[in-house]
C-alpha cells in the first residue's frame, strides 16, 4: 500500500519525463537505423548506413570542430568572469544592488533579442564596434562575414550573455561561506590571494562543477543566435552541431540523418557529463 502511494506521487513527473525525454531519445536512436521515408520510397531498415554517411560527411566534422572551439572559447572564460564578478559584487561597494542587477541583465534577455542587438554591434561601418574603432582610426572590419573572426564574435557574445547567470550561483555560494574562515585567515596573516586560492576556491568547487556542467551543455545546445547572426555561414564557418541538425531535419527533410546526428550529440553530452561527475566529484568536496 505504501508503495502504491509512492508510485502515485511519482506518476506525474514520470509521465512527463518519459513522454518528453526518454521516449523521444529512444525513438531517435531507433530512427537512426532507418532511411528517411517519403510517400514514393517508404522508410526501411538500413543498419549503420546513416552512421557511415556521417563519418563521410565533411560538414559534420567541420561543425564538430567548430563546436569544440566554441566550447573551449566560451566555457573557461565565462566561468572565470562569473567568479570574478561574483567576488566583486560580494564585497561592500556603493550601489551594490545596481551592479549586481546590471551583471545579471544579459541573462534575462531572450537570446534572439540579444543576437539582434549584437548583429548591429558587429555590422561593418554602421555597427557600434566599428564606430568606436573609427574614432581611433582603426579600419572597418567585416566581423561576421570573415571566416577567421566569426567564431570569436559568437563566443564573445555568448560569454557576455552567460557569465551573469553563472555569477548568481557563485554569489549564492560565496554568501553561504562562513565569515569565521576569513577572520581566521586574517589572524593567521594570510594574503587575500592565498585565502582565495586555498580556502574560497576549494569551497566553491561544488558550484564550479555545477556551472561547468551547465556551461558545457549550453555550448552544445544554445544555437538561437545562429538563426539571426550568421545562419551558420560563411561557408559553415560558424555552424554548430545543433544548428546543423536543424538544417538537416527541417531544411533538407532528412529526418533519419538528423536522428543519427542527434544520437551522436546525445552520446557526447552524456559521456561528458559522466566524466565530469565521476572524475571531478572525487576532488570536489573540501576536506
Amino acid at each position, binding site marked *: 500500500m505504501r508503495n502504491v502511494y509512492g508510485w502515485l506521487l511519482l506518476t506525474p513527473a514520470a509521465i512527463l519525463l518519459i513522454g518528453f525525454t526518454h521516449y523521444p531519445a529512444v525513438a531517435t536512436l531507433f530512427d537512426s537505423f532507418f532511411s528517411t521515408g517519403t510517400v514514393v520510397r517508404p522508410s526501411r531498415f538500413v543498419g549503420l548506413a546513416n552512421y557511415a554517411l556521417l563519418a563521410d560527411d565533411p560538414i559534420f566534422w567541420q561543425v564538430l570542430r567548430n563546436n569544440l572551439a566554441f566550447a573551449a572559447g566560451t566555457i573557461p572564460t565565462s566561468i572565470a568572469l562569473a567568479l570574478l564578478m561574483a567576488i566583486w559584487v560580494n564585497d561592500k561597494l556603493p550601489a551594490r544592488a545596481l551592479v549586481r542587477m546590471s551583471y545579471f541583465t544579459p541573462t534575462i534577455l531572450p537570446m534572439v533579442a540579444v543576437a539582434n542587438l549584437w548583429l548591429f554591434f558587429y555590422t561593418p561601418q*554602421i555597427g557600434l564596434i566599428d564606430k568606436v574603432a573609427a574614432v581611433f582610426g582603426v579600419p572597418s572590419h567585416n566581423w561576421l562575414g*570573415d571566416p577567421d573572426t566569426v567564431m570569436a564574435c559568437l563566443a564573445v557574445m555568448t560569454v557576455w550573455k552567460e557569465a551573469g547567470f553563472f555569477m548568481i550561483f557563485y554569489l549564492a555560494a560565496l554568501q553561504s561561506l562562513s565569515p569565521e574562515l576569513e577572520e581566521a585567515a586574517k589572524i593567521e596573516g594570510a594574503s587575500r590571494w592565498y585565502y582565495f586560492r586555498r580556502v574560497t576556491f576549494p569551497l566553491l568547487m561544488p558550484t564550479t562543477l555545477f556551472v561547468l556542467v551547465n556551461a558545457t551543455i549550453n555550448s552544445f545546445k544554445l544555437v538561437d543566435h545562429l538563426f539571426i547572426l550568421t545562419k551558420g555561414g560563411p561557408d559553415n564557418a560558424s555552424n554548430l552541431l545543433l544548428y546543423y541538425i536543424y538544417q538537416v531535419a527541417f531544411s533538407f527533410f532528412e529526418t533519419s540523418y538528423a536522428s543519427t546526428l542527434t544520437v551522436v550529440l546525445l552520446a557526447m553530452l552524456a559521456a561528458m557529463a559522466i566524466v565530469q561527475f565521476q572524475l571531478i566529484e572525487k576532488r570536489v568536496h573540501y576536506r
Partner: protein
Amino acid sequence: MRSILAIATAALIGLAQAAWADTEITFYYPIAVGGPLTKVIDGYAAEFEKANPGVKVKPIYAGNYDDARIKALAALKAGQPAQISVLFSIDIYELIEQDVIIPWDDVATSAADKAWIKSFYPALMMNGTYKGKAYGIPFQRSTIVMYWNKDAFKEAGLDPEKAPANWTEMTQMAQKLVKKDASGNVSRWGVMVPSTGYAYWMFQAFARQNGQDLMNRDGNKTNYAHPDVIAALQYWRDLGAKHKVMPEGTVEWGTLRQAFTEGKTAMMWHTTGNLTAVKGSAKFPFGVAMLPASKQRGSPTGGGNFYLFKKTTPEERKAALAFVQFMTAPERAADWSMATGYVGISPAAYDTPKLKAYAAEFPPAVVARDQFQYATPELSTFQTGRVRKLLDDAIQASLTGQKQPADALKAAQTEADKLLKSYR
C-alpha cells in the same frame, strides 16, 4: 441529471449541424516581411466570408517560410484540417514528393477558371508549374531590384537619374562612388549585394545576366559548373577582391537596408519586399532600377504561392478555389502590393485605378513588373534544401577567398549530381 444530458446532446447536435451546413477552409500562411500583415489577411478572410455565406475561412499565421511548411505538413500528418496553404514557391518538388498537393487544374475546370490560371504573369507561374500543371498560384511574390542613392551619385559627379545598365558600367560607377576618409578607410562603398541567408537567390541574378539558369525545368539537374556561371561568381568576387567597391567577405542580408539608408553604400541589390521600408527610412532621394545586364538582364522571382492539399473533399476544393480566386483578384492584388511591396501578380492588377495612381506618384513601384520579362524562376529542385545549401556554401567560400569560384562551383555540381541522379 437527465435534463443536463438532454441539453448537452442538443447542443452537440446543433454544433454538428452548423458544421455540416458550412464548409470550412483552414489555411496556413507565412510572413517574411515587416508590417502588421496578419490584420490585412484576416480582413480579406472576413470580406470573403461576407460575400460567400456558408464558407468559413480560418487563416493561421505560421511564422516564416520554413515554419509554415513544417506546421502545415505536421497538421496534415496529424489529421488536422488544412485545405490550402501559402508556402514557399520553391517547396513545390518537396510537396509533390510527399504527395500532399494536387494541381489547381484539377479543380479549375470551367472556361473562366482556366482563364484565371492564365491571368498571372508567366514569370510567376514558372516556380508553380510541374509537368505542365499549375500547382502554385502566385500570392506574395518578389524579385530583386537595384536601389541607388541619388545624392551619392551627384557627389561623385554621376548623373543622379541614371542607374548602371550593365556590369561594366556598374563597376566603373561604383569605383567613382567609393569614398575614403583622411586615413584611407572606406566610408562609403560603391555597391553591396547581400550574401548571407539568400546567397543562392542573388547569385541566380548574376548567372542569369550572364546567360545561364542554374537548374532545369524538371528540377533534377543543376548547372553550377558552366563556364559562364563560374564567370558570374568571379565577377561577384572581383567586386570586393579586385575592384574594391564592395566589402570583402560576406555582406549581411539583415543589416544591408540600414547600410544603404545610412549612406554606407551608394547602390544595393535587394528584394522589392524592402521597398516600402526603404521609402520610409531613407533621408535622401533614391532610385530603383532593374538589375544591370551582362549578356542580358535577369533576376529571379521569389516568395509564396497558394497550394491545394490532396486530402480535401470536393466541396472544400470548390470553396478553396473560390477563396483563392478572391485573394488573387486584381483589386486585392493591387491592395496587397501597396501594403507590402510585393509585386502585383497579374497585368490586371497594375491596370486597377488605385495601383495606377500609386505608380504615378511613386514610380519605383512598377520597376519589378517591368523586369518580369527578364525573370527566371527561383532555384528549386528535388532535395532542394541540400542542393541549395551546396550553392550557398560555394558562393560564401568564394566571396571569403577560401576557394576559387571554379573549384567551389565544380565541387558543388559534383555533389548535386549525386543527390539528383535518382530523380532523372
